[in-house]
């Protein structure tokens, strides 16, 4: 890559630049954002391929030299994060973020797989009013209003956000775990039982004591 010095700066190797940017960023950075920042500093714009190659090269070096972080691809951008084996230690420094409640998870799952979707549709699937869950998920910036439906009353349509992807460690909606097929649940009585068991894994001998 030609490295003009139009801005009077001596360009550092691209790999180092990418590492530095990811080191100080506290959100995922896209290839375009990194290329633009580089261009502003040094006057030349690296191609997407060059940026991606640098990212791959960095991850290889991290692996080979025993670094405890990797560049992850989340929500369409790149971000430095630690590797799993160090988490038992890190948990003593910083509690992981609180888990989402079952209510929020269920509502979020419906929105993730069915987006764009209206509140009445969500309510129907869950069998309950989802007011609170929708408000809270918006506050957490995991979902957002994406428009209005053309149906009666023109209800708001909800969809997931970039932060949703990052929160679940996904790069795009294509990475969502497969939605279990209805057929799968319908056809196989084994799976039926198994699913229900998983969903309500109480110790059998204590069942009688529920409220």
């Amino acid at each position: 890559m030609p490295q003009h010095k139009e801005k009077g700066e001596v360009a550092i190797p691209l790999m180092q630049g990418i590492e530095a940017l990811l080191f100080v960023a506290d959100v995922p950075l896209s290839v375009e954002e990194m290329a633009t920042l580089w261009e502003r500093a040094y006057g030349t714009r690296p191609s997407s391929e060059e940026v991606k190659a640098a990212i791959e090269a960095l991850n290889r070096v991290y692996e080979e030299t025993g670094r405890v972080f990797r560049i992850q691809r989340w929500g369409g951008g790149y971000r430095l994060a630690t590797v799993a084996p160090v988490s038992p230690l890190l948990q003593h420094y910083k509690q992981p973020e609180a888990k989402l409640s079952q209510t929020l998870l269920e509502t979020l799952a419906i929105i993730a797989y069915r987006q764009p979707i209206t509140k009445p549709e969500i309510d129907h699937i869950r069998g309950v009013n989802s007011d609170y869950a929708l408000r809270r998920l918006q506050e957490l910036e995991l979902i957002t209003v994406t428009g209005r439906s053309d149906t009666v009353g023109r209800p708001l349509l909800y969809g997931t956000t970039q932060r949703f992807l990052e929160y679940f460690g996904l790069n795009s909606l294509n990475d969502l775990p497969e939605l279990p097929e209805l057929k799968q649940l319908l056809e196989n009585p084994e799976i039926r039982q198994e699913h229900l068991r998983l969903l309500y894994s109480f110790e059998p001998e204590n069942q009688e004591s529920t409220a």
Partner: protein
Amino acid sequence: MYRVRLPVFEGPLDLLLYFIRRDELDIYDIPVARIADEFLAYVRLMEELDLDGVGDFLYLAAVLLHIKAQMLLPRPPAETAEEAPAEDPRQELVARLLNYLRYKEAAGRLDACAEARRRLYTRGAAAGAGNEEAIAAPPPLAPVSMLELLGALRKVLERRVHPPDHTVRREIYSVEAQMRYVQTQLQQQKRRSFAALVAGQSRGFVIATFLAVLELARQGQVWLHLQESGDDFLVELTEALSVEETYAAA
């Protein structure tokens, strides 16, 4: 004394699924008459506790009663196994249950993604401190005037004036906040009786705390020990038992 885990239901469909699982029922052959009675008993308990969302449960209770009535009507004689399901009054309900089950299952898979993601730590507040300036500087803030701050305060005050008293009271205690309260209490003393946790508190506090304890029990964060008298129970911190330990202890 024995240990129990109490389920908390996400809604009426979830409660139905629970009955099906507990009694190992065939989801296609739900004994609606029996389930409807039990369902109603649960709804009555909800009303007793003055819980939000009873309306959603009442609706499904009505659906169940309707199906129950339909099933009491005499059936046509040709009752071969293959033809019956098409006209089964339970069909729509079963379809809904299964559809809900799909998303419940999907929620579980998403949770597994989040769990894996939570183990990967990002740089957090330290990011951005790479430059010579302040260490761990919080992100810069978009300008806000004092006026906006006051405007926000006024909104709170306005909101406070309008709702009738009982509505406000109902919202004072959130289950989330009470979960933290219970956790804090148990960190000071690993095992407390429920009565002690709510001693001298209002009805709203007791209900929210009760629900919080149920949720903590469901998450496996606490054990509940029923006392012989049956009018109180102990809440005990599980100290993050591993799955194996949990089963070994059961």
